[in-house]
């Protein structure tokens, strides 16, 4: 079996001492930032990108991946204990998890979240290992026209499922694409929009944009809000192990959540966030067993389902990034950046040219998940203590790491200034309720999209119909169009708004 051989190779890479350490480091860091509200995986990974210059590609990616799925575990802890989701993907967990904590069942909720996540993580790893090779095969059949259409689908997919206004989200993508145009044109060598600033001819650093918007911008937004009163249920976390009845209730929800998350994670725009929302909606629709607690009042299924789903989704969202080189969400966009920093061109060729990296990364996810269960269940007390660190100590620390990270990108203060400018820009986006994540995706994909568009047009001698006359490309564009049409239908539109309302 190829699958087994590949996984064996992966585990042999993942189980070296060095890689185990980095998987552990990433998981710890992920849990940490997951627990801390106001610091998400996007800002953290952006912060760490400069420091991976010193690492080899495999341990670096293993660590960054650990941060992403580790944050899914940590995020649920705060959602359950203080009703503040540490990550956006834990928003729905807070609804029932917090109610369980208020009823003195915080331990059971944490266990359901942790064990559910672990199960989902194991399945997610197998799904990636099984589906990555055939998708890679398909990707080799792609020409420039197909790649362009695929990116259109990816970008559209990334926003139809996001919250808020669709038009504004698409506009944010375009803004990102345009910011990506500040560079030197690869084909003609003409510097564009550089205003004779030499640093701008290399383009804006996406780390600087990510840190400005997600790091600094969020700090400003957080500080601008009045300090809130938090009620922490730390004393109640004693009986970690759920009862037999809890298990019976939770496991079907875990299975459903895992299945849903594994599918939704692979879609463009999918990932942890969408998966957890969808899983919660499904659980609510399921028929209630007699004697079951109502949703919104501490139903364990409302914790187990979404938590399994967000972890499965977090893992399978690696599939489009690893096989096609196309990031489905902002975290994966940063992973693409990390690979580029290490001199690896993301795309279907990674699996054949860097099998150690490819399979090692996948196997490390399973290893990391196992570590996370241990980190999060018996050691929960340590993380709870962290919640008592006041924000006024935290944000200067975030500023320090972001600023040093920005400087060391090119050993040049220019990126620091760009970060400062994007702090203001990020704050403006926040004030005008414009989601910044699609902008980052657009920015990453911009240069790739332009190159493929122009190559496709060159090949077809300027005939735009090449995008619809090639069946694969046409199919992808039709899918993108369908997505827009479907979410614009009045009945779906109100459902979509309702789903996001639940989260607030």
């Amino acid at each position, binding site marked *: 079996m190829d699958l087994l051989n590949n996984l064996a190779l992966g585990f042999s890479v993942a189980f070296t001492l060095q890689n185990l350490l980095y998987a552990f480091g990433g998981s710890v860091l992920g849990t940490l930032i997951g627990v801390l509200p106001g610091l998400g995986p996007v800002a953290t990974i952006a912060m760490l990108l400069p420091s991976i210059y010193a690492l080899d590609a495999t341990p670096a990616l293993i660590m960054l991946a650990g941060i992403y799925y580790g944050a899914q575990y940590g995020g649920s802890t705060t959602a359950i204990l203080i009703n503040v989701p540490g990550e956006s993907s834990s928003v729905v967990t807070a609804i029932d998890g917090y109610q369980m904590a208020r009823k003195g069942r915080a331990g059971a909720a944490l266990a359901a979240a942790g064990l559910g996540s672990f199960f989902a993580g194991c399945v997610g790893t197998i799904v990636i290992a099984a589906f990555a090779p055939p998708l890679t095969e398909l990707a080799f059949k792609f020409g420039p026209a197909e790649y362009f259409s695929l990116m259109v689908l990816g970008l559209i997919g990334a926003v139809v499922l996001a919250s808020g206004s669709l038009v504004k989200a698409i506009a944010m993508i375009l803004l990102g694409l*345009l910011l990506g145009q500040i560079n030197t044109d690869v084909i003609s060598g003409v510097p564009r929009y550089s205003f004779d600033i030499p640093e701008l001819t290399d383009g804006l650093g996406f780390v600087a944009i990510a840190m400005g918007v997600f790091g600094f911008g969020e700090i400003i937004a957080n500080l601008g809000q009045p300090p809130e009163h938090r009620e922490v249920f730390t004393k109640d976390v004693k009986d970690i192990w759920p009862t037999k009845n809890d298990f019976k209730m939770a496991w079907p929800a875990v299975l459903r959540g895992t299945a849903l998350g594994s599918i939704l994670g692979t879609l463009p725009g999918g990932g942890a966030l969408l998966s957890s929302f969808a899983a919660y909606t499904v659980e609510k629709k399921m028929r209630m067993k007699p004697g079951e607690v109502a949703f919104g009042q501490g139903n364990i299924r409302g914790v187990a389902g979404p938590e399994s789903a967000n972890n499965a989704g977090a893992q399978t969202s690696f599939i489009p990034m690893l096989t096609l080189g196309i990031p489905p969400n902002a975290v994966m966009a940063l992973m693409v950046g990390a690979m580029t920093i290490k001199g690896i061109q993301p795309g279907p060729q990674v699996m054949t040219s860097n099998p150690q990296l490819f399979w090692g990364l996948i196997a490390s996810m399973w290893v990391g998940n196992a570590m996370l269960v241990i980190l999060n269940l018996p050691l929960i007390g340590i993380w709870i203590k962290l919640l008592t660190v006041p924000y006024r100590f935290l944000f200067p620390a975030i500023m320090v790491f972001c600023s*040093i990270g920005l400087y060391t990108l090119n050993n040049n203060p220019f990126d620091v200034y760009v970060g400062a400018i994007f702090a203001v820009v990020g704050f403006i986006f926040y004030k005008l309720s414009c989601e910044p994540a699609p902008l980052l995706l657009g920015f990453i994909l911009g240069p790739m999209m332009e190159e493929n568009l122009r190559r496709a047009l060159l090949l077809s001698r300027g005939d735009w119909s090449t995008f619809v006359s090639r069946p694969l490309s046409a199919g992808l564009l039709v899918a993108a169009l369908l997505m827009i049409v479907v979410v614009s239908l009045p009945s779906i539109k109100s459902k979509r708004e309702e789903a996001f309302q639940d989260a607030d």
Partner: protein
Amino acid sequence: MKIKSQRDFWAGLMFVAVGLGFAWGATFYSFGSSARPGPAYFPFGLGILLAVLGAIVLFKALTIEVEGGDPIGGVPWKPLLYIVVTVTVFGWTLPHLGMVVALPILVVIAARAGDEFHWGEALANAAVLTVFSWLIFVYGLNLTIPLWPSFLAR
């Protein structure tokens, strides 16, 4: 004409302005033809598209009633200014004064952005973070970061 949604109105305006700006900027580069697209081809199209979407957002903001008018709300000038100034100052101080001086300055100015500020706390935080950063970035990751003021190093 009355603005129905403040946030969308300004967002729409921003999109139109930026879109037109990029499209206008593109006119300085060669446009090429569809068969041989030049450097201006892609950004010009994108800019126009963005302006069109911005116009749609604007139109909606002026016609569709939103509950409460969707106000932008007050601007927290204090954190905004402090954070931006902190980062900008750091951009200058790090290469000139080195990490040992630049980081404490960064932490102390940043801490003032919050509602609560105590000198003792801020200085202690600065000391811890500076040592920590040295351990991680200089000692651990071997990054080239200027440590001491440049006039002392020479």
